[in-house]
């Protein structure tokens, strides 16, 4: 039992330590479906320094946890835009947008309506 407690306390220590350099933020990213979710999250995770990326299909909110020493919101956004998704204050190039799968063309009202159900 003593060993258990020691290990638990040590683990708690790690938790407390790792909080200091991590930043948490929530930004809006445009998209419509599960495929978009995967693409957006993958683009973020592949940015060096990003630890966690969860995009909500319904609210379009992307929750990010990243290491502030290694990256910043701007570089993450750049990578999101590069795979074709608009985000706060940054728009994807037409070229990137056109590379999206037909079902993910979120700028098209028809596509958006198709995903409403």
């Amino acid at each position: 039992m003593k060993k258990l407690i020691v290990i638990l306390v040590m683990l708690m220590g790690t938790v407390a330590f790792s909080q200091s350099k991590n930043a948490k933020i929530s930004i809006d990213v445009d998209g419509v479906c599960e495929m978009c979710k995967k693409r957006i999250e993958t683009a973020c995770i592949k940015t060096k320094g990003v630890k966690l990326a969860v995009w909500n299909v319904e609210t379009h909110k992307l929750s990010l946890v990243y290491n502030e020493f290694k990256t910043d919101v701007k570089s993450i956004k750049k990578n999101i835009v590069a795979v074709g998704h608009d985000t706060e204050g940054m728009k994807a190039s037409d070229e990137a947008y056109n590379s999206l799968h037909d079902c993910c063309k979120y700028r098209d009202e028809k596509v958006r309506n198709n995903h409403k159900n």
Partner: protein
Amino acid sequence: MKRINLVFILFPFILFSQQKIEGTIYETNKKNNKIGLPGANLRWLNTSIGAVTDFDGKFTIPYKKEYKKLIISHVGFTTDTLLIEQAQKVSLVLNPANRLDEVVIKNRKKTIAVSYLKSLNIINMSSDELLKTACCNLCESFETNPSIDVNFADALTGTRQIKMLGLTSPYILMGIESIPAIRGAAQAYGLSFIPGTWVESIQITKGAGSVVNGFESIAGQINAKLQKPLSDSKLFINAYGSLDGRLELNTHINNRLSDKWSTGLYLHGNRRDTKFDKNNDTFLDAPLGEQINLMNRWQYVDLKKGFVSFLNFRFLNDEKQMGQLNFNPSKDKLTTNFWGSEIDTRRIEFSGKFSYANPELTYQTIDFQIAYSNHDQDSYFGQNVYDISHDSFYSTAIYSSIIGDSRHNFKTGINYTYDSYNEKTVIKLNELDYSRNENSIGTFFEYNYDDLADFNLTAGFRIDSHNLLGTFVTPRLHMRYTPWEKAALKASVGRGKRSANIFAENQNIFSTSRSINILNNQGKIYGLDPEIAWNFGISFLQGFNLFERKADLTLDFYRTEFKNQIVLDLENPLEANFYNLEGDSYANNVQVEFNYNAFKGFNLRMAYKYFDVKTQYKSGKLEKPLVPKQRMFVNASYETGENNKNNALWKFDLTYNRLGKQRFSSTLSNPIAYQLAEYSPSLATLNTQATKVFSSTFEIYIGGENIMDVKQKNPILGSENPFGANFDTTMVYGPIFGSNYYLGLRYRIN
């Protein structure tokens, strides 16, 4: 759902005063133009500081650095929350809460589902699946699942035994809320001590499984999640009665005590006091019995801080009587007047689970689990006595987090288990004591890699130090690869090790005239060695559309190879011999499964299984007795469309099972009257159930088990002379009772 289009623009806001935030709240009109929304409420989370928008939707609200979340609400609109990092101008469009023309389309989820994405081959059974049969207890809930076989253990107790990959339940790690629970003394009857209504869902892992829950699993793992006081109905009543004399009552009462604490009281009682002997062998076809089972669950949830805990207290008292019709326990116990048997079980259990998930970094979690149980069984079978008392303590601490980013996850931690067995057998008046203590401490590390596309991998190992099994390493590896769309190729390999509780796992041998012997006496557990096995598996899942309806096909192959096994040799009909494996023992299993949603509400599940289970006995390498080589399974279910007003509907369910011939252990040396054929005949059973759901609060179900009335004619060998040399109740390959019909109701208040 209308898409929530939130526009959240950051203006560089150059002002000397950072004490307040200004902004505008909008709504969209019919032409989709933004117009200011007057009267919207704004409030900082966890404060009383708020503001209201003016006629143009404009507002000003005091700001401090500690304020992070701004909640914006308005009657008729969806409440929204903004994360504010610094003083900035805010502009937000609120969305109408509910459009009148909005139609909610529910997508029916499959009640049995295998993940396309996980590396472990886990089959999830939801609560809807559990309602497909009477499901009086956890064991019976597997009857509609092709991956688990439900067999009969003996001709007396009516206890069903489950098998996975051709191996019996001791080779499956069975947990409740991921705490190993049905083990040790509880192995034989433990599944029938978990009432079906208590179970929320079941996860079945085929193959070695995760290292987190211990080293014991060999064929697979089964985990049952229990109802949660917070999500279960406030009041739930289930009553059941069947023509074979079984009556059951289940009551759940759940109460939310505060915003963090909830509690639930779960009560189960069952009783059978009608004697049946349809096959006129002077023995009861089904045991008489009575069970009281009580559980109290406490749930604590504080999501803001990330704490979730459960506390469970449980008490069980179960009494069974089996044997000859005229047996009267008070007069005939342990005599040769009549053959009879009683099993009395009492179990007390406490378990606690404490989880912390870092609310800022949601991937960091700490879980702590602790469980204690005392399982006490006093029993006799004719003139044989078997008493076991098992005290068990289990604790584990698990830390999970990521390495670098969320593609690399890991779980690590430590477990400690302590088991104290007080075990006594009296066989042919010869009393023996097998008491022993086991304890082990182990540490594990499991790494999970997910490339977020077509590949993931779970690799785990653990090191345990056990007072009787020694110090050993348990490695396990699982992989998933998606070669093309809607497909998943999974492979696994892993090792398992366990100490066999030879008597608790094979209690049916007490109900025979066999002499029970343990050969080679140098080992540490009953004089025997630990069981060690490797499991290899490969599985392919392909989803597709057939006539524009969803279908999927699964192809599985699993092989379990024993390095050592405690062999129970029944090949001499006068003896039951336990010994260490010398030579080969393996179980190969091929399964083909096809699921098809043929039309709305109609689901078809078909499976074919082939088993090749062989063990080297002293008398040669033989098929494992009473394991059919082939099994066919069909389950069809149909649900009428929901009537929108009160959710009334009908549900129909039909399960067909065909078992191939099963080998009897040899009876060649018996007198001709007591000889059995080498193989049993093949047999098929059909179960059906209809449920009428009147509303979301009330439903009635009626069903028939084995409606084709298939029976094994003489389940008990030597029944006319139970104290003679050839009495044997273990040669059971099929139903004893024949058809049985039942009726039940469920009533709930949410």
